[in-house]
């Protein structure tokens, strides 16, 4: 039987945040199992060893520092500015998890003060955040919020000392090599270029008119389902691209097109190849895909 490593000492620190990642984390149905392997030195909502005030006083060593929320040098927790609080805790930890898109790239809160607010390693696409020199020990879990399973996966990999393959933003490939498009129930409509006439139906693809960013957003939302049961696209909502450094873009419910052609292509697909297939596919009329899936609910 494999030996059980000691509990990881974890600090969960918040920057400029809405608490969304905290509540997303609390949705983990196997939270109890996870808590068997970690000890929270500090957590904003769960029982923990140190209160925020004690944390700021002691600045303890840890195995993992989870940072939620956007970074601003002057933003304070318990009277201590992030500039020193985050930096000190980061130096005294072995691993850092950037939890959510605010911590990872600046996210929504960056919009209010773009000059001073950023992620911890990245500021949008640029690696100019305060922890850029420590990037080797940072794992990015972008997403607004990040999925609880993405976090438990990362903690588990760290706990068993397994290497985590990462992409250019230090996001685990096992989670972010997928596109949100992968596994979307509307994929067949995408293949045959049948667009959703309007919101509120099971039928049609949301990429052509409703602004869905699934084909160019990295994330396993349609593989590791939200709240175990669904996802934005499965409930008919376009993907808003929340795992990418560009989040939040503008005009989120409309597809930007040039002469009816989507302005952004699925990742890695040359425009010419896409259009050759799209033009052909669109000219077919597949009766099954133009009908409602279920005629009525009686």
């Amino acid at each position, binding site marked *: 039987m494999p030996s059980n490593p000691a509990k990881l000492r974890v600090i969960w620190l918040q920057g*400029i*945040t*809405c*608490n*969304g*990642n*905290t*509540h*997303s984390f*609390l*949705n*983990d*149905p196997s*939270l*109890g199992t996870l*808590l068997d392997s970690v000890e929270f030195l500090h957590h*904003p*909502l*769960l*029982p923990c060893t140190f*209160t*925020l*005030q004690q944390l700021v006083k002691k600045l303890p060593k840890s195995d993992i520092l989870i940072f939620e929320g956007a970074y601003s040098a002057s*933003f*304070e927790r*318990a009277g201590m500015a992030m500039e020193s609080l985050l930096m000190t805790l980061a130096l005294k930890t072995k691993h850092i998890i950037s939890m959510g898109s605010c911590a990872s790239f600046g996210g*929504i*809160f960056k*919009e*209010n*003060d773009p000059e001073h607010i950023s992620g911890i390693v990245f500021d949008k696409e640029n690696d100019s955040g305060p922890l850029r020199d420590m990037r080797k020990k940072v794992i990015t879990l972008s997403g*607004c*919020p990040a999925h609880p399973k993405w976090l438990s996966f990362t903690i588990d990999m760290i706990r068993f000392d397994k290497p985590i393959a990462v992409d250019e933003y230090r996001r685990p490939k096992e989670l972010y090599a997928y596109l949100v498009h992968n596994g979307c129930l509307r994929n067949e409509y995408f293949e045959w270029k049948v667009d959703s006439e*309007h*919101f*509120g*139906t*099971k039928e049609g693809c949301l990429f052509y008119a409703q602004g869905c960013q699934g084909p160019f957003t990295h994330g396993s939302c349609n593989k590791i389902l*939200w*709240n*175990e*049961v*669904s*996802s*934005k*696209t*499965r*409930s*008919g*909502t376009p993907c*808003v691209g*929340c795992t990418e450094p560009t989040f*939040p873009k*503008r*005009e*989120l*419910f409309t597809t930007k097109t040039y002469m009816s052609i989507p302005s952004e292509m699925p990742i890695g697909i040359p425009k010419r190849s896409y259009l050759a297939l799209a033009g052909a596919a669109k000219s077919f009329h597949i009766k099954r895909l133009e009908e409602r899936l*279920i005629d009525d*609910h*009686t």
Partner: protein
Amino acid sequence: MITHELIERIEGEAVLDFQTDKSGAVQDAAIRFLHFRGMEAILEGRNALDALVITPRVCGICGHSHLIATVKMIEDAYRNAGVAIRISDKATAIRQITLSCELIQNHIKWLYLVMLHESGKMMGEEPTVALKALYVSSQVNQLCALFSGQWPHSSYALPGGVSCDPTHIEVMQALKILSDVERFIEDEVLGCTPEVFEQAMRDNEVLSLSGDFGTVLRNFERLKVLDTGKSHGRFLVLGDKSVAMANGIRNSADFALVSEDDSQTFEHGGKTYAKNALYNGEFYEGGPLARALVQERTGITDLYRTYGDSAIIRLSARVAEMVSLCAQVRQLLTSLDLSQPSFIPPPAIESISAEGIGIIEAPRGSLIHRATIEKGKIVSYSIITPTQWNLGNGTASNLGIAQKAMIGAESIAKASLIFRTFDVCSVCTTH
């Protein structure tokens, strides 16, 4: 003596400045929120529909309420622009189901993570993780996600309806989850059926309830704070039926009497980022207690007659609301007519220039979103959150709701506990 107390394990953090006498009793209390994120400014200049993605990020625990307030605001703008917009009964019901789910999970987390935890700690107990409560909250959120795609931070409600198109399978799953949640509330929270719980409220016997709620009440009793925490006895509900209640008299509320007061904010030399929300120039309490009282719900109304607006009734009102919301969700789920459209497309938002107001009942009280839209773009956006009503910082002659409730407490610790009975959310207060 003046003490600054950092309040944690709420949504975000708050600082309470207490003035105490020699015995340690609280003579004055000020509430300060130190973080500000500028959500309203972020929205300006954007397409009004983008607000459906941005505003849920005001708050991780009640973001869905912000979504529903935003969608109602936009729909109101359509109507004010003279454009008809129709919402099917099905879409209205689904929105109410998911919103109620958010309230239920909020109340469960508050009861276990905050009240049971903090009162237990004051009794000298070693705190443990309330896994059973977190598990059932995650189930409630799963029920929500069957329709909204995810919780937190869904954007599934759009002007014209909802984006999902559920089948009986989702409804069946939702009803199964709901049964589990109801069982949890009966077995763990109350230790009795909802009927027995209501009878216990009417007979003033809630202290003898065997569940975790009873434990919280008994902790409060041992700490001698159960009947403390009285405030102005003024209540306001703007979301469903607009009612203001003062001195035991209910009147229909007039939105024109709502105002914001920023005299205590940093901008004006004060010590907080939070603006006060006032009705007719005065502080009014919102939330589950206000909702129960203006609707004259039996049980809470009976308890109120005995105890006034003290801690016991604020605790009971949140728990009673969990119970009534479950019944409401069950009723809505069983009567959903799935053959109705989920979404009735309105004219393009770009054709709309008008002002809109969206008011809903969020976990902590009335939530107001108001915006001016010009050709589909947001010119200005203003949000009044429930905690701005309850956690406002007044003056000696016009004290805020929680402020007044804390003054007179025997100690800072007890005042802080009273403060938490209001279900504090710092992130919302200073959006």
